[in-house]
C-alpha cells in the first residue's frame, strides 16, 4: 500500500478539529449545495448544463438567504431577551 493511500485512509480515522466558533457555520455551505443539486436533479424534466446550474444556484441561494434570515431573527430574539 502506497504512502499516499495510507495517508488518505488515515485522514478518515481521525476527526477534524472544529470548535464552537462562528466560522464553523460555514460547514453548512457544502451541505446546502449538495441538497440543492440533488433536489434539482430529481425535479427538472430534462438536464441541460445551463438550466441545471441556474436552477441549482437559485435554490442554493434561497437556502442560504433563508438560513441567514432565521439566524438574524434568532440573534435579535436573544438580544431582546438578554438585554
Amino acid at each position: 500500500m502506497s504512502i499516499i493511500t495510507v495517508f488518505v485512509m488515515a485522514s478518515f480515522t481521525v476527526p477534524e478539529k472544529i470548535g464552537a466558533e462562528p466560522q464553523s457555520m460555514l460547514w453548512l455551505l457544502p451541505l446546502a449545495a449538495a441538497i440543492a443539486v440533488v433536489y434539482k436533479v430529481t425535479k427538472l424534466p430534462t438536464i441541460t448544463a445551463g438550466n441545471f446550474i441556474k436552477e441549482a444556484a437559485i435554490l442554493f441561494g434561497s437556502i442560504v438567504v433563508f438560513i441567514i434570515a432565521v439566524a438574524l431573527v434568532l440573534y435579535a430574539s436573544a438580544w431582546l431577551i438578554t438585554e
Partner: protein
Amino acid sequence: MPRYSKENKAIFLLVVGLLGWVVPGAGYFVLGEKKRAIIVFTAIILTFCLGLYIGSIGVIDLFGTSAIYVKVAQVMNPPVAIVLGHYTVGGNYPVYGWPNEIGQVYTMISGLLNLLCIVNAVYLAHLYRTEMAGG
C-alpha cells in the same frame, strides 16, 4: 409494442430501487438517465465522504448508542456504511462534539438524499414501464 406483466414490472422496480441503494444514481443509469446518474453519484458520494472526513468513520455508529433516526438515515447510504458500522463497533474510533455532530449531519443527509433519488428513480421506472405497456 411489448407487453409486460405486473410481476415483471414489480421486479424491475425492485431492481431499480436496489441498484439505486447499492450505487447512488445507478437507478437512473438503468433507465438511461446518465446525466442524472453521474450528478447524483458525485453529489451523494462527496457528501458522504466529507462527513466521514470531518468526523472520521466513528460517526457511523449503527450498532452503538446513537439515536435511532441517525441510524435509519445513515443506513440509506450505500452498503459501505453498514461495513463501516461493523468497524466502529465498540468505540474504536471515538469522536465527540462538533466534529461528531457535523459528520453525523453530513452522513445522514447523504443517506436521505440517496433515499430521495431511489424513490424518484423507482417512480420514473414506473412511468416508463406504464408508457411502454401502453397504459
